[in-house]
């Protein structure tokens, strides 16, 4: 008997089949209608969106909509090709100029998704004789970039500069001249904690390693002009490569990498996830460009962090076991048991609040979470409504005393 290629997924399939079918299945949510950045109709019910990474509420910004509509009419629905063949339009060049200006750097490359940006940059920069050193809580796109490349991959304990330093010392002892790329994230998406970039990057620099920071969850949210955590911490000079996404604060889809490395543009020739995929549609490029301009001068991040503090504090005061502190737009409560978390999620849906059910292996330390990613577009009334429903469901399920 030959092997059924799906046999290896049997445990996953069994777990999935224990979940209810239909509207209470957490992995088949479908938005019937989207009303605004913070509200949608799901299963015929008006629902507050509390877990959509729409940090700045840019998806319905009038100026972004207008820019996208104009580009759609002028340049069509898609480019039908790679950036290196027919897929580079004027808009892509303008967007890269905007990014250079936004980050005050020499070079910027736009990718079709944030996932592809990490995949491409990590897999391409670190070759067979090089090392990639990654944080243990890294996003899947970072792990996958490592798998796709040919470098030796080393993992250090989450946000622990001493642990990183120890690993860099061992590499240098064995391989004094090897190229090393250290990869960290500005904000870690599940628990919203920030990397101590200064300490981590200082350890990296001591051992002549390059530093890549993924600011996917921090662009727009942190720093005086919204560049992210490195700007917030005043350590941009220690960062060699910044990766990010347009799919959160920027309100559309796409990824980027910026750098001051003089040879950076060579990536356009050798980075396969850049070369062998179609470029972003013109309307997406135009709205991303407009959103970046708006984010730079906006004070929306102040409102966003006020929202997060309000919900984090409310939940902590109510007695929840908190995974987050309010230092980022992520709000997460820890639920002891995975199936209680599923039940919690279902009850929140019935109460008209969409949050993320986050369970291992997507979460660190085997945690099950009810996770929110808030928006500057949420009103305090909406935040208070979420809080009230969190408490109601918590009492019902015995999560709160």
């Amino acid at each position, binding site marked *: 008997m030959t092997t059924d290629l799906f046999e290896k997924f049997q445990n996953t399939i069994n777990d999935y089949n224990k979940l209810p079918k239909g509207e209470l299945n957490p992995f088949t949510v479908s938005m019937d209608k989207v009303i605004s950045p913070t509200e949608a109709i799901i299963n015929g019910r008006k629902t507050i969106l509390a877990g959509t990474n729409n940090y700045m509420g840019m998806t319905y910004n009038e100026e972004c909509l207008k820019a996208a509509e104009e580009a759609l009419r002028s340049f069509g629905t898609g480019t039908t090709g790679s950036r290196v063949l027919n897929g580079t339009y004027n808009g892509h060049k303008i967007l890269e100029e905007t990014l250079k200006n936004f980050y005050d750097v020499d070079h910027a490359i736009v990718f079709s998704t944030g996932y592809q940006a990490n995949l491409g940059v990590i897999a391409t920069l670190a070759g067979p004789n090089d090392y990639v050193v990654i944080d243990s809580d890294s996003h899947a796109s970072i792990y996958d970039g490592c798998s796709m490349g040919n470098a030796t991959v080393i993992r250090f304990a989450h946000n622990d500069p001493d642990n990183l330093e120890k690993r860099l010392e*061992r590499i240098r002892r064995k391989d004094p001249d090897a190229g090393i790329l250290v990869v960290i994230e500005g904000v870690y998406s599940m628990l919203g904690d920030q990397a101590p970039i200064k300490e981590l990057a200082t350890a990296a620099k001591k051992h002549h390693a390059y530093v890549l920071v993924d600011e996917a969850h921090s662009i727009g949210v942190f720093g005086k002009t919204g560049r992210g955590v490195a700007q917030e911490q005043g350590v941009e000079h220690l960062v060699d490569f910044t990766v990010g996404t347009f799919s959160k604060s920027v309100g559309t889809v796409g990824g980027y990498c910026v750098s001051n490395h003089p040879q950076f543009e060579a990536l356009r020739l050798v980075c396969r996830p850049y070369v062998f995929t179609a470029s972003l549609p013109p309307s997406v490029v135009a709205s991303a460009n407009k959103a970046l301009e708006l984010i730079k001068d906006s004070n929306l991040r102040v409102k966003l962090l006020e929202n997060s503090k309000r919900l984090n504090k409310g939940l902590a005061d109510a007695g929840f076991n908190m995974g987050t502190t309010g230092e980022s737009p992520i709000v997460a409560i820890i639920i002891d048991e995975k199936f209680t978390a599923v039940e919690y999620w279902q009850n929140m849906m019935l109460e008209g609040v969409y949050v993320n059910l986050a369970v291992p292996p997507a979460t660190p330390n085997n945690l099950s979470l009810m996770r929110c990613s808030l928006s500057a577009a949420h009103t305090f009334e909406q935040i208070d409504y979420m809080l009230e429903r969190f408490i109601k469901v918590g009492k019902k399920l015995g999560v709160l005393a």
Partner: protein
Amino acid sequence: MTQSTTEIFDQISDLMAPFNTKSINIKPDTSFATDLELDSLSVMDMLAAIEDHFDITVPLNILPDLETVGQVAEAVKSILEE
């Protein structure tokens, strides 16, 4: 000083304690996935403990080849001898 595979195996068995939640008797053919029911993240955490104990670099690249505790002991031995 060169260590034998048995000596290395014994040390690894001790390091496994926090990951051996079912308290099974660890033998060279004990497998991470089937016997210890460890997911890939736990196996990586375990490797980190091994790295620090032996003061070596264990690249994640070799993970797909490590199914049993005995195979890890062999891998550590060859890294120590490099």
